[in-house]
C-alpha cells in the first residue's frame, strides 16, 4: 500500500510550520510520528495535498524543567518519555504508561503531541494528560496560547487545536511528594489499542483522599474525565465501598462502540475493572 501523492515540506522552525499551514490551508496536514496518518493515507481515509513534516524542528523535542513544571516538547517520542530521568523523578506515570503504548519500534516514532492532537479516543495520552493536570501550548498565526488538557478533547478526531496551529509543548506540574498513580490498560495484544483503560492520580491526607483524578481511555467517542467518580472519593476515606461507588460512576460514564475488542456490555464492565485496579494500585503507592 502506497500513500496518495502529496507535496512534502520540512520546515526548520515552528514559525515556518505555522506560516505553511496558513498558506496551504485545509489541504495540508502536519506529519508527526506518522503512525496514525501514514496508515490512514495508505487506506485513503486521508488524502492531504501537502504534508508538513515537523520532525526537523529541534525546538519541539526534549524534556526540561521550568521551576515546578515539566515541559515536554510535543515531538518527543514515547521511548524518550520512558527513559527520561526528569519524568522518572517528577511524573513517573508517563514513563510507566508509555511502555503500554504500541511496541518498541513504534515508540521510536510515535510522539506525545501526535497522540494528543490526533483526538483518537483509543490513544492513551488524552486520559494521562487529564489526570496529570497537563496543559498544551499551541502556536498559531497570532502567537501562542495555553489550554488545559481537561476540556481539550471534544469528540472523535476533534480537539481545540485549530487547523492553523501547531502543538508545541505539554506542560505538567511535577508530582507532589507521595502522589499515587496508575494506568491500567486492558489490551488483546502488544500494539493494540485499549479495550478499556483508566488513568488515576491520587493523594492522601491521613486516611482520606485529598486529591483525585480519574479518566478513561477508549470507552466513549472521546476521553472521559469521570468527575462523579472523583466526587465519590474526594474528602472521604479510601475503602471498598467508596471505590465501588467510583467504579459505578465510571461505568455510568461509559459509551463505548462495539468492535472486535468486545461488545458494549463487556467494554463497560472492563472499564469498571480497570478503574478499580487503577484506584487500588494508585492508592497503594500514596504516601
Amino acid at each position, binding site marked *: *500500500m*502506497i*500513500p*496518495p*501523492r*502529496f*507535496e*512534502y515540506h*520540512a520546515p526548520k522552525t515552528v514559525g515556518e510550520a505555522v506560516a505553511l499551514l496558513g498558506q496551504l490551508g485545509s489541504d495540508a496536514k502536519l506529519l508527526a510520528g*506518522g*503512525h496514525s496518518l*501514514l*496508515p490512514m493515507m*495508505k487506506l485513503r481515509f486521508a488524502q492531504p495535498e501537502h*504534508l508538513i*513534516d515537523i*520532525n526537523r524542528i529541534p525546538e519541539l523535542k526534549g524534556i526540561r524543567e521550568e521551576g515546578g513544571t515539566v515541559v515536554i516538547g510535543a515531538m518527543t517520542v514515547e*521511548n524518550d518519555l520512558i527513559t527520561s530521568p526528569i519524568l522518572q523523578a517528577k511524573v513517573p506515570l508517563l514513563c510507566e504508561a508509555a*511502555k503500554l503504548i*504500541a*511496541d*518498541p*519500534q*513504534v515508540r*521510536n*516514532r510515535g510522539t506525545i503531541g501526535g497522540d494528543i492532537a490526533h483526538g483518537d479516543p483509543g490513544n492513551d495520552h488524552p486520559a494521562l494528560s487529564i489526570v496529570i493536570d497537563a496543559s498544551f501550548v499551541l502556536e498559531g498565526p497570532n502567537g501562542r496560547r495555553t489550554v488545559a488538557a481537561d476540556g481539550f478533547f471534544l469528540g472523535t478526531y476533534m480537539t481545540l487545536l485549530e487547523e492553523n496551529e501547531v502543538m508545541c509543548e505539554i506542560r505538567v506540574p511535577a508530582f507532589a511528594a507521595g502522589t499515587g498513580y496508575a494506568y491500567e490498560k486492558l489490551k488483546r495484544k*502488544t*500494539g493494540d489499542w485499549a479495550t478499556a483503560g483508566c488513568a488515576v492520580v491520587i493523594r492522601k491526607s491521613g486516611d482520606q483522599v485529598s486529591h483525585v483524578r480519574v479518566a478513561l481511555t477508549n470507552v466513549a467517542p472521546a476521553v472521559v474525565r469521570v468527575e462523579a467518580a472523583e466526587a465519590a472519593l474526594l474528602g472521604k476515606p479510601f475503602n471498598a465501598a467508596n471505590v465501588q461507588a467510583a467504579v459505578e460512576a465510571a461505568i455510568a460514564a461509559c459509551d463505548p462502540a462495539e468492535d472486535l475488542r468486545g461488545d458494549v456490555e463487556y467494554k463497560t464492565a472492563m472499564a469498571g475493572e480497570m478503574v478499580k485496579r487503577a484506584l487500588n494500585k494508585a492508592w497503594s503507592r500514596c504516601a
Partner: protein
Amino acid sequence: MSKKLVTVSVNGKKEEKAVEPRTLLIHFLREELNLTGAHIGCETSHCGACTVDIDGRSVKSCTHLAVQCDGSEVLTVEGLANKGVLHAVQEGFYKEHGLQCGFCTPGMLMRAYRFLQENPSPTEDEIRHGMAGNLCRCTGYQNIVKAVQYAAKKLQEPVAA
C-alpha cells in the same frame, strides 16, 4: 508532485536519489537500492518484518517516508555481517534454530541487533518485551528468545586480540 533529493547512508554506502515524497522507506530500499532483505509484511506497522535501524533506533520502514531519511544512517540486514562473518545475532538465529519459514527473520535480526545494544544483558522477560514489535507467524518464539540469549552471551565475550 515534485521529487525530492535524498542523500542517505545505507549500510555505510552513500546513496543519492530523487524520490517521490510518498515513497516509503521499505520500497526505497527494496526497489531503488535492490536491498530486498527487509520484508513487506503487514504494511501497517504491526508485524515488524520491515524493521531497519535509522540513526541508532529500530524503525518499521513501512511507516516511514524515504524522504524523511535525508541525512540519516540506515542499516539493513544486508549490513549486519562483516566480511562474510555472521553477526552474533545472525549466528544465534542459526545455532538456536530461530527461524522456520524465515519471513520475519530480517526484522527479528535488526530488532535483536539494536535491542542488545539498548540492553546487553537482558532477562528472558526483557527479551520478550524488547522484541514485542516483531511477529513470527510460525510462532517460533521460544527459539527466537534462545537465539537472542545466545547473541547476548556471545557479544559479552571478550574480543580476541
